[in-house]
Protein backbone atom coordinates (compact mmCIF):
# COMPACT_ATOMS: atom_id res chain seq x y z
CA UNK A 1 0.00 0.00 0.00
CA UNK A 2 2.81 2.38 0.73
CA UNK A 3 4.82 1.09 -2.20
CA UNK A 4 2.53 2.81 -4.64
CA UNK A 5 3.64 6.15 -3.25
CA UNK A 6 7.31 5.31 -3.75
CA UNK A 7 7.09 3.99 -7.27
CA UNK A 8 6.75 0.37 -6.23
CA UNK A 9 10.05 0.16 -4.39
CA UNK A 10 10.40 -2.21 -1.45
CA UNK A 11 13.29 -0.37 0.07
CA UNK A 12 14.03 3.31 -0.06
CA UNK A 13 17.15 4.97 1.32
CA UNK A 14 16.59 7.88 3.66
CA UNK A 15 18.53 10.03 6.08
CA UNK A 16 17.97 11.20 9.60
CA UNK A 17 19.32 11.03 13.12
CA UNK A 18 16.00 9.84 14.44
CA UNK A 19 12.71 8.49 13.17
CA UNK A 20 11.13 11.93 12.89
CA UNK A 21 13.94 13.22 10.66
CA UNK A 22 13.96 10.02 8.69
CA UNK A 23 10.25 10.24 7.92
CA UNK A 24 10.56 13.92 7.06
CA UNK A 25 13.31 13.05 4.60
CA UNK A 26 11.19 10.27 3.17
CA UNK A 27 8.15 12.48 2.77
CA UNK A 28 10.20 15.18 1.14
CA UNK A 29 11.28 12.57 -1.43
CA UNK A 30 7.74 11.26 -1.80
CA UNK A 31 5.19 13.88 -0.74
CA UNK A 32 2.18 11.65 -1.37
CA UNK A 33 3.34 9.44 1.49
CA UNK A 34 2.27 12.06 3.97
CA UNK A 35 -1.42 11.34 3.49
CA UNK A 36 -0.81 7.68 4.26
CA UNK A 37 1.55 8.11 7.16
CA UNK A 38 0.57 11.17 9.10
CA UNK A 39 -2.54 11.99 11.11
CA UNK A 40 -2.62 15.26 12.99
CA UNK A 41 1.14 15.56 12.95
CA UNK A 42 1.65 12.11 14.44
CA UNK A 43 2.22 8.77 12.77
CA UNK A 44 -1.19 7.36 11.93
CA UNK A 45 -2.38 4.71 14.42
CA UNK A 46 -2.74 2.13 11.64
CA UNK A 47 0.85 2.45 10.45
CA UNK A 48 3.61 1.10 12.63
CA UNK A 49 7.25 2.03 12.49
CA UNK A 50 9.87 -0.51 13.51
CA UNK A 51 13.56 0.11 14.01
CA UNK A 52 15.45 -3.17 13.79
CA UNK A 53 12.27 -5.09 14.56
CA UNK A 54 11.14 -3.03 17.55
CA UNK A 55 8.02 -0.87 17.46
CA UNK A 56 9.12 2.73 18.04
CA UNK A 57 6.11 3.15 20.32
CA UNK A 58 7.98 0.87 22.74
CA UNK A 59 11.17 2.90 22.27
CA UNK A 60 11.19 6.68 22.06
CA UNK A 61 8.49 7.20 19.48
CA UNK A 62 9.43 9.66 16.79
CA UNK A 63 12.53 10.61 18.77
CA UNK A 64 13.92 7.11 18.52
CA UNK A 65 17.46 7.43 17.20
CA UNK A 66 18.44 5.65 14.01
CA UNK A 67 21.96 4.69 13.00
CA UNK A 68 23.49 4.20 9.63
CA UNK A 69 22.60 0.90 8.04
CA UNK A 70 19.65 0.17 10.32
CA UNK A 71 16.46 -1.10 8.83
CA UNK A 72 13.32 0.85 9.49
CA UNK A 73 10.07 -0.81 8.52
CA UNK A 74 6.88 1.11 7.81
CA UNK A 75 4.06 -1.36 8.34
CA UNK A 76 0.51 -0.51 7.44
CA UNK A 77 -2.35 -2.64 8.73
CA UNK A 78 -3.71 -5.07 6.14
CA UNK A 79 -7.10 -6.69 6.14
CA UNK A 80 -7.16 -8.82 3.02
CA UNK A 81 -8.14 -12.43 3.47
Amino acid sequence: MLREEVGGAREVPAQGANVRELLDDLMSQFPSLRAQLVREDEIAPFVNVYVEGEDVRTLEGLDTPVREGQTVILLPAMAGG
Partner: protein
Amino acid sequence: MPTYRELLAQLRSEIEEVDAVRARDLLAADEPPLLVDVRELDEWAEGRIPRAIHVPRGFLESRIEQAAPDKSQPIVLYCAGGNRSAFAAKSLEDLGYENVVSLAGGYTDWKRNGFDTELPRSLDTEKRARYSRHLLIPEVGEEGQLKLLDSRVLLLGAGGLGSPAALYLAAAGVGRLGIVDDDKVDASNLQRQVLHSTARLGEWKAESARRTLQELNPDVDVVPYRERISSENVERILADGWDVIVDGTDNFPTRYLINDASVWHGIPLVHGSIYRFEGQLTVFDTKAGGPCYRCLFPLPPPPELAPSCAEGGVLGVLPGIVGSLQASEALKLALGIGESLAGRLLLFDALVTEFSEVKLKKDPACPVCGEHPTITEYVDYVEFCAGRPAHA
Protein backbone atom coordinates in the same frame (compact mmCIF):
# COMPACT_ATOMS: atom_id res chain seq x y z
CA MET B 1 20.29 -76.25 21.60
CA PRO B 2 18.03 -75.11 24.41
CA THR B 3 14.28 -75.08 23.99
CA TYR B 4 12.25 -71.96 24.56
CA ARG B 5 11.41 -73.18 28.05
CA GLU B 6 15.02 -73.82 28.89
CA LEU B 7 16.05 -70.46 27.51
CA LEU B 8 13.38 -68.72 29.51
CA ALA B 9 14.34 -70.52 32.71
CA GLN B 10 17.97 -69.60 32.15
CA LEU B 11 17.02 -65.98 31.50
CA ARG B 12 14.93 -65.68 34.61
CA SER B 13 17.87 -66.66 36.72
CA GLU B 14 19.90 -63.89 35.13
CA ILE B 15 17.47 -61.03 35.44
CA GLU B 16 15.61 -59.54 38.35
CA GLU B 17 11.89 -60.04 38.73
CA VAL B 18 9.34 -58.46 41.03
CA ASP B 19 5.83 -59.57 41.81
CA ALA B 20 2.78 -57.36 41.35
CA VAL B 21 2.70 -56.18 44.96
CA ARG B 22 6.35 -55.15 44.92
CA ALA B 23 5.90 -53.46 41.54
CA ARG B 24 2.98 -51.49 42.86
CA ASP B 25 5.05 -50.28 45.80
CA LEU B 26 7.90 -49.26 43.52
CA LEU B 27 5.54 -47.32 41.29
CA ALA B 28 3.89 -45.56 44.22
CA ALA B 29 7.20 -44.12 45.43
CA ASP B 30 8.05 -40.41 45.17
CA GLU B 31 10.46 -41.10 42.35
CA PRO B 32 8.95 -44.05 40.58
CA PRO B 33 10.84 -46.09 37.99
CA LEU B 34 10.07 -45.79 34.30
CA LEU B 35 7.30 -48.27 33.54
CA VAL B 36 7.50 -49.84 30.09
CA ASP B 37 4.80 -51.98 28.53
CA VAL B 38 6.37 -54.28 25.93
CA ARG B 39 3.20 -55.91 24.64
CA GLU B 40 1.74 -55.64 21.15
CA LEU B 41 -0.37 -52.67 20.09
CA ASP B 42 -3.72 -54.40 20.32
CA GLU B 43 -3.00 -55.58 23.86
CA TRP B 44 -1.91 -52.06 24.87
CA ALA B 45 -5.08 -50.64 23.35
CA GLU B 46 -7.22 -52.81 25.57
CA GLY B 47 -5.82 -51.54 28.83
CA ARG B 48 -2.57 -50.83 30.60
CA ILE B 49 -0.98 -50.03 33.93
CA PRO B 50 -1.32 -46.27 34.58
CA ARG B 51 1.68 -44.14 33.65
CA ALA B 52 3.23 -46.86 31.52
CA ILE B 53 4.86 -45.96 28.24
CA HIS B 54 4.49 -48.27 25.31
CA VAL B 55 7.55 -49.71 23.62
CA PRO B 56 6.56 -52.96 21.94
CA ARG B 57 9.04 -55.82 22.24
CA GLY B 58 9.85 -55.57 18.52
CA PHE B 59 11.01 -51.97 18.84
CA LEU B 60 12.58 -52.20 22.25
CA GLU B 61 16.25 -51.97 21.32
CA SER B 62 15.74 -49.24 18.77
CA ARG B 63 13.50 -47.00 20.88
CA ILE B 64 14.49 -47.54 24.49
CA GLU B 65 17.43 -45.16 24.40
CA GLN B 66 15.21 -42.27 23.43
CA ALA B 67 12.70 -43.16 26.15
CA ALA B 68 15.39 -43.78 28.77
CA PRO B 69 18.60 -41.99 27.89
CA ASP B 70 20.01 -42.49 31.38
CA LYS B 71 21.07 -46.13 31.72
CA SER B 72 21.10 -46.01 35.48
CA GLN B 73 17.44 -45.00 35.59
CA PRO B 74 15.30 -47.68 37.28
CA ILE B 75 12.99 -49.41 34.82
CA VAL B 76 10.12 -51.83 35.33
CA LEU B 77 9.12 -53.88 32.29
CA TYR B 78 5.91 -55.80 31.90
CA CYS B 79 4.07 -57.87 29.34
CA ALA B 80 0.97 -60.03 29.55
CA GLY B 81 2.40 -62.92 31.56
CA GLY B 82 6.00 -62.10 32.41
CA ASN B 83 7.83 -64.02 29.68
CA ARG B 84 8.32 -61.38 27.01
CA SER B 85 9.33 -58.89 29.67
CA ALA B 86 11.97 -61.35 30.88
CA PHE B 87 13.51 -61.43 27.40
CA ALA B 88 13.17 -57.66 27.25
CA ALA B 89 14.96 -57.24 30.57
CA LYS B 90 17.86 -59.32 29.30
CA SER B 91 18.06 -57.17 26.19
CA LEU B 92 18.19 -54.02 28.24
CA GLU B 93 20.91 -55.43 30.43
CA ASP B 94 22.86 -56.28 27.30
CA LEU B 95 22.43 -52.66 26.25
CA GLY B 96 24.01 -51.55 29.49
CA TYR B 97 20.94 -50.72 31.55
CA GLU B 98 21.82 -51.18 35.19
CA ASN B 99 18.54 -51.15 37.01
CA VAL B 100 15.92 -53.22 35.18
CA VAL B 101 13.27 -55.48 36.67
CA SER B 102 10.59 -57.56 35.00
CA LEU B 103 7.07 -57.97 36.37
CA ALA B 104 6.59 -61.66 37.07
CA GLY B 105 3.08 -62.71 36.10
CA GLY B 106 2.73 -59.55 34.00
CA TYR B 107 -0.42 -57.53 33.41
CA THR B 108 -2.56 -60.58 34.05
CA ASP B 109 -1.30 -60.89 37.58
CA TRP B 110 -1.50 -57.14 38.13
CA LYS B 111 -5.18 -57.21 37.24
CA ARG B 112 -5.78 -60.32 39.35
CA ASN B 113 -4.50 -58.38 42.33
CA GLY B 114 -7.15 -55.77 41.62
CA PHE B 115 -4.66 -52.97 41.03
CA ASP B 116 -5.46 -49.86 38.95
CA THR B 117 -5.54 -50.11 35.19
CA GLU B 118 -6.42 -47.52 32.65
CA LEU B 119 -8.43 -47.95 29.50
CA PRO B 120 -7.91 -44.76 27.57
CA ARG B 121 -9.31 -44.26 24.14
CA SER B 122 -7.16 -45.23 21.31
CA LEU B 123 -7.39 -44.96 17.57
CA ASP B 124 -9.15 -47.58 15.50
CA THR B 125 -7.44 -49.20 12.53
CA GLU B 126 -8.82 -46.72 10.02
CA LYS B 127 -7.61 -43.75 12.01
CA ARG B 128 -4.25 -45.36 12.57
CA ALA B 129 -3.92 -45.63 8.80
CA ARG B 130 -5.21 -42.15 8.05
CA TYR B 131 -3.08 -40.38 10.63
CA SER B 132 -0.07 -42.68 10.44
CA ARG B 133 2.25 -39.85 9.46
CA HIS B 134 1.22 -37.99 12.61
CA LEU B 135 1.58 -41.06 14.81
CA LEU B 136 5.19 -41.38 13.72
CA ILE B 137 6.08 -37.95 15.07
CA PRO B 138 7.11 -38.13 18.73
CA GLU B 139 5.59 -34.73 19.49
CA VAL B 140 2.24 -35.90 18.16
CA GLY B 141 1.77 -39.65 18.43
CA GLU B 142 -1.48 -41.29 19.39
CA GLU B 143 -1.99 -38.94 22.31
CA GLY B 144 -1.59 -35.88 20.11
CA GLN B 145 -3.86 -37.23 17.42
CA LEU B 146 -6.54 -37.94 20.03
CA LYS B 147 -6.12 -34.36 21.20
CA LEU B 148 -6.62 -33.10 17.65
CA LEU B 149 -9.72 -35.22 17.24
CA ASP B 150 -11.05 -33.56 20.40
CA SER B 151 -10.18 -30.03 19.24
CA ARG B 152 -12.60 -27.43 17.94
CA VAL B 153 -11.37 -24.70 15.64
CA LEU B 154 -13.51 -21.84 14.39
CA LEU B 155 -12.60 -20.44 10.97
CA LEU B 156 -13.80 -17.01 10.04
CA GLY B 157 -14.00 -16.89 6.29
CA ALA B 158 -13.98 -19.69 3.71
CA GLY B 159 -12.03 -17.62 1.23
CA GLY B 160 -8.40 -17.04 0.42
CA LEU B 161 -6.97 -17.67 3.85
CA GLY B 162 -9.77 -19.91 5.05
CA SER B 163 -9.38 -22.37 2.18
CA PRO B 164 -5.90 -23.70 2.88
CA ALA B 165 -6.37 -23.35 6.62
CA ALA B 166 -9.57 -25.39 6.58
CA LEU B 167 -8.13 -28.01 4.24
CA TYR B 168 -5.07 -28.66 6.36
CA LEU B 169 -6.94 -28.57 9.65
CA ALA B 170 -9.45 -31.07 8.29
CA ALA B 171 -6.70 -33.28 6.92
CA ALA B 172 -5.02 -33.23 10.31
CA GLY B 173 -8.15 -34.55 11.95
CA VAL B 174 -9.29 -31.55 13.96
CA GLY B 175 -12.50 -32.94 15.37
CA ARG B 176 -14.74 -29.96 14.80
CA LEU B 177 -14.33 -27.12 12.32
CA GLY B 178 -16.69 -24.18 12.36
CA ILE B 179 -16.84 -22.23 9.09
CA VAL B 180 -18.32 -18.73 9.18
CA ASP B 181 -19.03 -17.22 5.77
CA ASP B 182 -22.11 -15.55 4.33
CA ASP B 183 -20.87 -15.26 0.77
CA LYS B 184 -21.49 -17.26 -2.37
CA VAL B 185 -18.84 -18.77 -4.61
CA ASP B 186 -17.94 -16.31 -7.34
CA ALA B 187 -15.73 -16.84 -10.39
CA SER B 188 -13.18 -14.33 -9.14
CA ASN B 189 -12.74 -16.47 -6.02
CA LEU B 190 -11.43 -19.45 -7.96
CA GLN B 191 -8.07 -17.83 -8.64
CA ARG B 192 -7.17 -18.65 -5.04
CA GLN B 193 -10.00 -20.13 -2.95
CA VAL B 194 -9.14 -23.77 -3.35
CA LEU B 195 -11.95 -25.03 -1.12
CA HIS B 196 -14.39 -24.32 -3.93
CA SER B 197 -14.72 -25.19 -7.60
CA THR B 198 -16.29 -24.18 -10.88
CA ALA B 199 -19.08 -26.66 -10.26
CA ARG B 200 -19.95 -24.76 -7.09
CA LEU B 201 -20.37 -21.30 -8.57
CA GLY B 202 -23.31 -19.57 -6.95
CA GLU B 203 -23.39 -21.90 -3.93
CA TRP B 204 -22.97 -20.77 -0.36
CA LYS B 205 -19.29 -20.86 0.51
CA ALA B 206 -19.89 -22.30 3.96
CA GLU B 207 -21.77 -25.21 2.39
CA SER B 208 -19.23 -25.66 -0.37
CA ALA B 209 -16.52 -25.73 2.27
CA ARG B 210 -18.41 -28.32 4.25
CA ARG B 211 -18.70 -30.63 1.26
CA THR B 212 -15.03 -30.39 0.32
CA LEU B 213 -13.83 -30.89 3.86
CA GLN B 214 -16.17 -33.77 4.59
CA GLU B 215 -14.93 -35.57 1.47
CA LEU B 216 -11.35 -35.04 2.52
CA ASN B 217 -11.93 -36.28 6.04
CA PRO B 218 -15.21 -37.72 7.32
CA ASP B 219 -13.78 -37.77 10.86
CA VAL B 220 -14.26 -34.00 11.03
CA ASP B 221 -17.54 -32.48 12.13
CA VAL B 222 -17.84 -29.43 9.87
CA VAL B 223 -20.28 -26.84 11.20
CA PRO B 224 -21.20 -24.17 8.64
CA TYR B 225 -22.42 -20.78 9.84
CA ARG B 226 -23.98 -19.02 6.92
CA GLU B 227 -23.68 -15.60 8.46
CA ARG B 228 -21.40 -12.64 8.95
CA ILE B 229 -19.86 -12.15 12.37
CA SER B 230 -21.13 -9.05 14.12
CA SER B 231 -21.94 -7.91 17.64
CA GLU B 232 -25.31 -9.59 17.21
CA ASN B 233 -24.17 -13.14 16.67
CA VAL B 234 -20.60 -13.39 17.92
CA GLU B 235 -21.58 -14.51 21.42
CA ARG B 236 -23.98 -17.13 20.09
CA ILE B 237 -21.36 -18.55 17.72
CA LEU B 238 -18.64 -18.58 20.36
CA ALA B 239 -20.95 -20.23 22.86
CA ASP B 240 -20.72 -23.39 20.75
CA GLY B 241 -17.26 -23.83 22.24
CA TRP B 242 -13.96 -23.30 20.43
CA ASP B 243 -10.35 -23.91 21.35
CA VAL B 244 -8.76 -21.76 18.64
CA ILE B 245 -10.07 -19.12 16.24
CA VAL B 246 -8.52 -18.61 12.81
CA ASP B 247 -9.10 -15.16 11.34
CA GLY B 248 -9.44 -15.40 7.58
CA THR B 249 -11.71 -12.38 7.21
CA ASP B 250 -11.22 -9.66 4.65
CA ASN B 251 -12.17 -6.49 6.49
CA PHE B 252 -11.10 -4.46 9.50
CA PRO B 253 -14.41 -4.24 11.38
CA THR B 254 -14.62 -8.01 11.73
CA ARG B 255 -10.98 -8.33 12.66
CA TYR B 256 -11.40 -5.91 15.54
CA LEU B 257 -14.62 -7.59 16.62
CA ILE B 258 -13.17 -11.08 16.72
CA ASN B 259 -10.08 -9.77 18.46
CA ASP B 260 -12.14 -8.29 21.26
CA ALA B 261 -14.20 -11.48 21.49
CA SER B 262 -11.10 -13.65 21.66
CA VAL B 263 -9.66 -11.51 24.45
CA TRP B 264 -12.86 -11.62 26.48
CA HIS B 265 -13.29 -15.35 25.97
CA GLY B 266 -9.62 -16.22 26.41
CA ILE B 267 -9.44 -18.07 23.11
CA PRO B 268 -6.22 -17.79 21.08
CA LEU B 269 -6.67 -16.07 17.75
CA VAL B 270 -4.51 -16.90 14.73
CA HIS B 271 -4.26 -13.76 12.62
CA GLY B 272 -3.37 -13.65 8.96
CA SER B 273 -3.75 -10.86 6.44
CA ILE B 274 -2.65 -10.36 2.86
CA TYR B 275 -2.32 -7.74 0.15
CA ARG B 276 -0.85 -8.25 -3.32
CA PHE B 277 2.42 -10.02 -2.56
CA GLU B 278 2.63 -9.44 1.16
CA GLY B 279 1.33 -11.24 4.17
CA GLN B 280 1.26 -10.72 7.92
CA LEU B 281 0.83 -13.46 10.47
CA THR B 282 0.73 -13.74 14.23
CA VAL B 283 -1.08 -15.31 17.16
CA PHE B 284 -3.02 -13.25 19.66
CA ASP B 285 -3.11 -15.21 22.90
CA THR B 286 -3.96 -12.85 25.75
CA LYS B 287 -4.76 -15.73 28.08
CA ALA B 288 -1.09 -16.67 27.82
CA GLY B 289 -0.14 -13.05 28.48
CA GLY B 290 0.40 -12.04 24.87
CA PRO B 291 -0.66 -8.91 22.97
CA CYS B 292 -3.91 -8.53 21.05
CA TYR B 293 -4.73 -6.94 17.71
CA ARG B 294 -5.32 -3.56 19.30
CA CYS B 295 -1.85 -3.66 20.86
CA LEU B 296 -0.61 -3.84 17.30
CA PHE B 297 -3.01 -1.46 15.58
CA PRO B 298 -5.12 0.46 18.10
CA LEU B 299 -7.51 1.79 15.47
CA PRO B 300 -8.63 0.71 12.03
CA PRO B 301 -7.66 2.82 9.04
CA PRO B 302 -10.36 4.85 7.31
CA PRO B 303 -11.94 2.93 4.43
CA GLU B 304 -10.14 4.92 1.74
CA LEU B 305 -6.81 3.69 3.10
CA ALA B 306 -7.90 0.09 3.57
CA PRO B 307 -8.00 -1.64 0.23
CA SER B 308 -9.36 -5.15 0.14
CA CYS B 309 -8.20 -7.85 -2.23
CA ALA B 310 -10.99 -6.83 -4.57
CA GLU B 311 -9.49 -3.40 -4.80
CA GLY B 312 -5.78 -4.10 -4.53
CA GLY B 313 -5.50 -7.57 -5.97
CA VAL B 314 -3.57 -10.50 -4.57
CA LEU B 315 -1.26 -13.16 -5.95
CA GLY B 316 -3.44 -16.26 -5.82
CA VAL B 317 -0.98 -18.45 -4.02
CA LEU B 318 -0.21 -15.88 -1.33
CA PRO B 319 -3.21 -16.70 0.88
CA GLY B 320 -2.28 -20.34 0.29
CA ILE B 321 1.03 -19.71 2.02
CA VAL B 322 -0.29 -17.50 4.79
CA GLY B 323 -3.38 -19.64 5.38
CA SER B 324 -1.27 -22.77 5.61
CA LEU B 325 0.90 -21.07 8.20
CA GLN B 326 -2.27 -20.19 10.08
CA ALA B 327 -3.21 -23.87 10.09
CA SER B 328 0.25 -24.71 11.37
CA GLU B 329 -0.14 -22.28 14.28
CA ALA B 330 -3.63 -23.59 15.05
CA LEU B 331 -2.40 -27.18 15.11
CA LYS B 332 0.44 -26.36 17.48
CA LEU B 333 -1.98 -24.54 19.78
CA ALA B 334 -4.40 -27.48 19.70
CA LEU B 335 -1.60 -29.94 20.40
CA GLY B 336 0.13 -27.75 22.96
CA ILE B 337 3.52 -28.19 21.32
CA GLY B 338 6.27 -25.95 20.00
CA GLU B 339 6.11 -22.17 20.14
CA SER B 340 3.39 -20.09 18.60
CA LEU B 341 3.90 -16.75 16.93
CA ALA B 342 2.54 -14.92 19.98
CA GLY B 343 4.64 -11.80 20.45
CA ARG B 344 6.02 -11.93 16.91
CA LEU B 345 4.58 -10.53 13.72
CA LEU B 346 5.79 -12.58 10.79
CA LEU B 347 6.03 -10.71 7.50
CA PHE B 348 6.22 -12.45 4.17
CA ASP B 349 7.02 -10.88 0.82
CA ALA B 350 6.37 -13.30 -2.01
CA LEU B 351 7.93 -11.04 -4.61
CA VAL B 352 11.38 -11.55 -3.17
CA THR B 353 10.53 -14.63 -1.11
CA GLU B 354 11.53 -13.11 2.14
CA PHE B 355 10.34 -13.82 5.65
CA SER B 356 11.06 -11.21 8.26
CA GLU B 357 9.57 -10.39 11.60
CA VAL B 358 9.00 -7.62 14.09
CA LYS B 359 8.36 -7.84 17.79
CA LEU B 360 4.86 -7.50 19.12
CA LYS B 361 4.60 -6.40 22.71
CA LYS B 362 1.56 -6.35 24.91
CA ASP B 363 0.50 -2.75 25.46
CA PRO B 364 -0.34 -2.08 29.12
CA ALA B 365 -2.49 0.82 27.89
CA CYS B 366 -4.35 -1.32 25.36
CA PRO B 367 -8.05 -0.39 25.42
CA VAL B 368 -9.12 -4.04 25.40
CA CYS B 369 -6.44 -6.25 26.93
CA GLY B 370 -4.56 -3.62 28.94
CA GLU B 371 -4.59 -2.89 32.63
CA HIS B 372 -7.47 -0.41 32.44
CA PRO B 373 -9.65 -1.42 29.52
CA THR B 374 -11.81 1.31 28.03
CA ILE B 375 -13.49 -0.88 25.44
CA THR B 376 -15.76 -3.34 27.20
CA GLU B 377 -18.47 -3.87 24.62
CA TYR B 378 -18.42 -5.00 21.02
CA VAL B 379 -17.85 -2.27 18.45
CA ASP B 380 -19.30 -2.62 14.98
CA TYR B 381 -17.08 -0.32 12.97
CA VAL B 382 -18.91 0.94 9.96
CA GLU B 383 -17.10 0.36 6.71
CA PHE B 384 -18.05 1.89 3.44
CA CYS B 385 -16.35 0.37 0.45
CA ALA B 386 -17.09 0.78 -3.22
CA GLY B 387 -19.80 -1.68 -4.12
CA ARG B 388 -20.22 -3.04 -0.58
CA PRO B 389 -23.19 -2.41 1.71
CA ALA B 390 -22.47 -0.79 5.05
CA HIS B 391 -22.74 -2.99 8.14
CA ALA B 392 -23.66 -0.89 11.10
